[in-house]
């Protein structure tokens, strides 16, 4: 919920762990009696950042990042951030502004990507920065002798984060790396063959990878219940439009690089959210009318719900048109 934004933490270490990936460690603020909440592998936190846009105005960014530290270690949280080329500001802020000693605001951990408790074996497929949730999951599984294997693909040895540590810690029988620059590719079809009944599959990475894995799993006869994925989307840019709030009778402009949720927050409207990446469903909002096409960018609404035009996930979706009337 929108209440879940306030926990202040200190950055105690910032490490460059790969070409474009930095690892940040957070602990409770000195002297506070705050204890970090426990989390389960696959959880993420939303980090609030106050940055500046190109015109020098203060902008608030809130991005979800998977917790990658050990769920059994309650002394700190660690996240890893990829510096994206077309950053809206969040990942550049983390990379360029955040230093050791800084205080950041993070949300409580939320898990939309848990390890399936009844699973007999767990296969993790990671692409690039998608490795992060699996680090916490593998740590928890290894601690209780859970059976797992990781298949981790990255662009080059210097681009891929943590692969060396993971190979050392879990061994080559459990950790396989695939370096694109060396011509190595994960053969999903082969991977899915001969897996024992009760195996669960988890994929986190770029959208085409997630789609390819899901397709291979369907073709191999795996039930959807055993295939899990997580992809946080950055809100895509688009043409500006007006959001009209029916109940509170307000008109709010949504800028080119802003999400509806961000525009509402900038106007001090308290809207519900949780993951801010189109995955959780918490920000589902009723649409009264739209004079253009709704661009549904989330992973949450069903095809039928999209076609009905009655619902929108305001964290990532927008209008290609002039005016969107919301039941807020």
């Amino acid at each position: 919920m929108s209440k879940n934004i306030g926990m202040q933490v200190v950055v105690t270490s910032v490490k460059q762990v790969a070409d474009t990936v930095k690892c940040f460690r957070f602990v409770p603020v000195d002297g506070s009696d705050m204890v970090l909440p426990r989390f389960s592998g696959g959880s993420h936190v939303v980090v609030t950042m106050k940055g500046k846009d190109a015109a020098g105005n203060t902008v608030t960014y809130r991005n979800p990042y998977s917790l990658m530290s050990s769920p059994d270690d309650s002394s700190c949280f660690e996240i890893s951030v990829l510096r994206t080329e077309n950053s809206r500001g969040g990942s550049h802020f983390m990379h360029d502004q955040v230093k050791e000693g800084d205080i950041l605001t993070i949300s409580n951990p939320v898990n939309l990507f848990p390890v399936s408790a009844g699973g007999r074996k767990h296969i993790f497929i990671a692409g690039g920065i998608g490795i992060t949730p699996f680090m916490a999951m593998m740590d928890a599984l290894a601690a209780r002798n859970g059976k797992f294997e990781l298949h981790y693909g990255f662009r080059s040895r210097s681009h891929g984060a943590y692969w060396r540590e993971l190979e050392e810690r879990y061994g080559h029988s459990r950790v396989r790396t695939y370096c694109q620059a060396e011509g190595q590719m994960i053969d999903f079809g082969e991977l899915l063959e001969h897996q024992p009944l009760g195996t669960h599959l988890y994929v986190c990475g770029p959208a085409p990878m997630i789609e390819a894995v899901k397709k291979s799993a369907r073709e191999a006869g795996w039930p959807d219940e055993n295939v899990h994925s997580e992809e946080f989307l950055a809100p895509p840019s688009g043409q500006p439009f007006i959001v009209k709030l029916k109940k509170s009778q307000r008109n709010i402009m949504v800028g080119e690089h802003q999400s509806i949720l961000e525009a509402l927050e900038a106007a001090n409207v308290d809207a519900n959210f949780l993951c801010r990446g189109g995955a959780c469903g918490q920000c589902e909002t009723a649409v009264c009318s739209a004079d253009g096409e709704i661009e549904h960018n989330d992973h949450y609404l069903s095809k039928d719900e999209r076609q009905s035009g009655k619902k929108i996930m305001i964290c990532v979706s927008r209008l290609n048109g002039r005016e969107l009337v919301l039941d807020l």
Partner: protein
Amino acid sequence: MKGGSNHAAALRALNAADYWEAPTIPTLLTRLGAALSTAHMGLRLYVAGTEGFIGQVMKVGTDAGISFLSIRTEHRGSLARRVSCVHCKGITENVTTNPATCSHCGLTLLVRDHYSRRIAAFQGVCIDAEVPGDVPPVEEAFR
């Protein structure tokens, strides 16, 4: 099994990877469990039959690691329940009435809609614990 025997020839002619006519439900469940223990992902489980039969097959499936959500079921025949007595833990098969008598400890049980996938049975709780003998009329509830 009863009612299915006249389909045996047609079923056998389908040349399934494994076709077996079980003499009893318990032997069928045992053999199914053994088959699933060496099975691979891609195998899907489909069950058709009575309420109690579906529940017991689903238990074998979930014990083998299959998510209950991915088991396809179709109900055919009786809705009689398997009832687990919360007092003696005994299971009474083919319960059609409510209340019902526990076939193990003899208590009169209220058959609740509370179902356990783990033991594939509905919960039965003593109906006259406070005033022994004060039992509502027995009605046929699960045909």
